[in-house]
């Protein structure tokens, strides 16, 4: 075999590899278009400029309803802007941000998760608490087991699910239980608040300790029971502008909207507490 | 569609030991239709002989119950079996490639049938050991099928089929999977075993030699129909189709006899020694043909045709020539003769056959 045919073979083989890479990048092109539009607006990003372009907000899953509504308001107020959200577990979002994900704003469900980001120096300025969330008991519609307090959940025969201690709602529940010196053995420690709520919605569990906002969002599929001990385990929701924000101007304007009385109205309507 | 003849199943009133096989097997498969009638008395060995695709194996599978009948009937020792599932038929099968269970030893292969018939493990094995011993395979009882030679595997398969004490033994191309040398030996053994088998045996083969050595009676099947049946010697002497003639190595023609001549449908006349009249076959072996480059003048042969060599092939230590012309025929000649004649395709020759070497019989 001659040298040149050997080389063409090698090239062809390299071509196969390149094609594989191309197909990968083609698949991810929808994600990168967002970057290009936001970097375009980044050129106009000075402190006094009018917000424009795309602002990317990473927010805790419990904020989904409220923030989606606020995003619409924002786009109305500043024509030419667009708010894109990434809702998820606060830990996951924090990990993405410290991993270099291009985001403008981070709104977390706990100070602990926000701390992951601030510790890495990824926030511009100190985070501010914009709402708080309180625990509530979610029971079956009509509350057939007559649950009226946290203590009632310790009754034998009642199937209760809690969030795992590693996620904010679980940590808060443990705090409330400890504060009232109660010992509760659930049937399951769920991976997130949504998982806990689903178990009650599907009537597999009789009760779950979740956030007030989740009970509200579930509508009539569950019944909410407030309990005094929840005051001892209130979650602060901090929001912060990110250091590498591609669209800092619009990001600041969005944070302002969230903290404004108009924003607070939307959030409290969904069950959040004012800070 | 089914038109299976309904007859009450059961044992005959006189209580005699069965009356063998009485079957008309009709299997319809759209483009192919099998319709053969088979009868045999206990102790008979019948060979179904025919070309590939003639329906022999289908007939065998229908007898075993592996292919449902669409019509006809199947009685064995007086009992109707049309609707009996294969596992309940008193039928044993030796498959073409034996289908010995590869995960079982020879002994357990043979014991499989008795076990299924309700014998205990030890008893089934004892029976199997006896069968293997009878087949001369006692020392191979523990061997897995893949360690057995072709001939040994064939005998294990036969023992396995016989161990269920079938009233009908079916053998599908029993020697086809063997090489030429083993074949000779196994054929002789199989003949001994079949001769000692007291019930009906039906074997399927496309090899006329196997059929003639092993069977008392041949049933020739072509295109799903029986075209000829009878004793092997009878069929060898009086073939009635080109296929059979070719099998037994004869040139065969059909025509109309007038005294000592048969006028063929294609025109030529063949002189014979028999005195017949009416539709008749006339046959002669390829070895009876002599070839000449020029028209023979001194030949005593009464049959002489002008032909052209269409093809040549070696056939054993002889040359077989395919001839076309006045009469299509095959001729066998020695290599030396072929060389002397300078035969090659396209050469014109005269073919001569003595009347005494032809054989005419009514069609």
């Amino acid at each position, binding site marked *: 075999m001659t040298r040149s045919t050997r080389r063409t073979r090698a090239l062809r083989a390299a071509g196969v590899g390149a094609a594989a890479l191309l197909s990968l990048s083609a698949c991810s092109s929808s994600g990168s278009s967002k970057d290009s539009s936001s970097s375009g607006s980044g050129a106009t990003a000075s402190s006094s400029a009018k917000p424009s372009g795309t602002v990317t907000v990473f927010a805790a899953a419990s904020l989904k309803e409220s923030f989606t509504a606020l995003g619409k308001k924002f786009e109305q107020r500043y024509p030419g802007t667009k708010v894109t959200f990434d809702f998820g577990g606060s830990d996951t979002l924090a990990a993405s941000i410290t991993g270099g994900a291009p985001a403008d704003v981070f709104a977390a469900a706990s100070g602990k998760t926000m701390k992951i980001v601030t510790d890495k120096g990824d926030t511009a300025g100190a985070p501010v608490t914009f709402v708080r969330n309180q625990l509530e008991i979610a029971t079956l519609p009509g509350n057939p087991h007559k649950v009226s307090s946290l203590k009632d959940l310790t009754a034998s025969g009642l199937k209760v699910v809690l969030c795992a201690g590693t996620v904010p709602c679980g940590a808060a529940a443990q705090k409330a239980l400890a504060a009232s010196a109660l010992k509760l053995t659930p049937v399951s*420690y769920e991976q997130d608040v949504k998982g806990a709520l*689903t178990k009650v919605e599907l009537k597999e569990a009789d009760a779950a300790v979740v956030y007030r906002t989740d009970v509200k969002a579930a509508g009539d599929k569950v019944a909410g029971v407030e309990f005094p001990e929840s005051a001892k385990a209130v979650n602060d929701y901090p929001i912060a502008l990110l250091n590498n924000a591609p669209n800092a101007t619009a990001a600041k304007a969005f944070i302002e909207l969230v903290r404004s009385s108009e924003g607070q109205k939307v959030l409290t309507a969904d069950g959040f507490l004012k800070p | 569609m089914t038109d299976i003849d309904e007859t009450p199943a059961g044992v005959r009133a006189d209580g005699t030991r069965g009356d063998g096989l009485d079957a008309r097997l009709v299997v319809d498969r759209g483009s192919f239709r099998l319709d053969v009638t088979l009868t045999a008395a206990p102790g008979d060995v019948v060979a179904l002989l025919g070309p590939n695709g003639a329906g022999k194996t289908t007939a065998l599978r229908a007898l075993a119950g592996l292919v449902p009948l669409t019509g006809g009937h199947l009685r064995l020792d007086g009992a109707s079996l049309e609707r009996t599932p294969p*596992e309940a038929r008193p039928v044993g099968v030796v498959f073409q490639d034996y289908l010995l269970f590869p995960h079982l030893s020879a002994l357990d292969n043979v014991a499989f049938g008795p076990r299924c018939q309700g014998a205990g493990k030890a008893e089934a094995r004892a029976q199997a050991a006896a069968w293997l011993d009878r087949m001369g395979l006692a020392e191979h009882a523990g061997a897995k099928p893949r360690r057995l030679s072709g001939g040994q595997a064939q005998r294990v398969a036969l023992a396995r089929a016989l161990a269920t004490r079938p009233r009908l033994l079916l053998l599908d191309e029993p020697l086809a999977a063997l090489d030429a040398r083993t074949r000779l030996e196994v054929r002789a053994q199989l003949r001994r075993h079949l001769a000692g088998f007291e019930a009906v045996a039906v074997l399927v083969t496309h090899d006329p030699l196997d059929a003639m050595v092993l069977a008392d009676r041949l049933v020739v099947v072509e295109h799903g129909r029986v075209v000829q049946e009878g004793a092997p010697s009878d069929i060898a002497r009086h073939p009635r189709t080109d296929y059979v003639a070719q099998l037994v190595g004869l040139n065969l023609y059909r025509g109309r006899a007038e005294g000592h001549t048969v006028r063929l449908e294609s025109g030529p006349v063949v002189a014979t020694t028999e005195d017949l009249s009416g539709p008749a076959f006339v046959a002669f072996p390829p070895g009876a043909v002599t070839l000449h480059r020029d028209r023979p003048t001194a030949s005593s042969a009464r049959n002489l045709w002008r032909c052209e060599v269409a093809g040549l092939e070696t056939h054993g230590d002889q040359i077989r020539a395919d001839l076309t012309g006045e009469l299509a025929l095959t001729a066998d000649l020695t290599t030396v003769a072929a060389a002397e004649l300078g035969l090659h395709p396209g050469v014109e020759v005269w073919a001569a056959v003595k009347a005494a070497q032809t054989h005419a019989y009514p069609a």
Partner: protein
Amino acid sequence: MSEAGRDARAVTLESGARRGRALRGVPLPLLVPALVGLAFLLLPLLALLVRAPWRSLPDQLTSPEVWQALQLSLISATCATALSLVLGVPLAWLLARTRFPGRGLVRALVTLPLVLPPVVGGVALLLALGRNGVVGQWLDSWFGITLPFTTAGVVVAEAFVAMPFLVISVEGTLRAADPRYEEAATTLGASRFTAFRRVTLPLIAPGVAAGAVLAWARALGEFGATITFAGNFPGRTQTMPLAVYLALQNDPAAATALSLVLLAVSIAVLAGLRDRWMTASS
């Protein structure tokens, strides 16, 4: 050394030599993507090893929670595999050996759990077998059986996700197996079931084993359907993948350590089984 042993060694030597020769002849357009593909599969595992918290590993591994989760994982995956075998092998036989209207549709439905997101599978299981499920409510009221939040529920969730692997693998083996052995068995007086049990099953054993290994591996790694259907409670329903996921929330190092344990155990089991079958089937 016995003669057979010497034979076996000769065979491995020979096949090794053949492999070496074969690799030299592999065309580059196949070799390059193949190596890239191999690297693609191995790199994340390698990264796991490189970044593993080796120093804190001993502490992680001696914690009782880890052993509890590992034990539960191994037991439930094995039970799920057993359940898949008992139900899946007959199902594969039905698909491979019988004809009935809608067989193609049934086959497609059998593979559905493969494409269904496991969490959705878990919800579907709750709707079917949960305390208020279509069937589950009767299980509860008649027999007092509730599957969610129990180890049995873990087995059910894992079997639901893993069984299709077994069915597909066994069906493929059955299709490749010569059905005439079953015919031969019936001519010897075996019922179809006896033929299956005594002839077909031993013949397809390697395929069944391969399918069982696939199913076991899938069950061992199962997360979504398990946590959705059976929940997460240490010692009862918290399998290794659940423990890994929850550890990931606040202690990625611990999650890495747990993953390494799971990885090591599965490699040990799979490699061990594979060797045994290789020698058994040759």
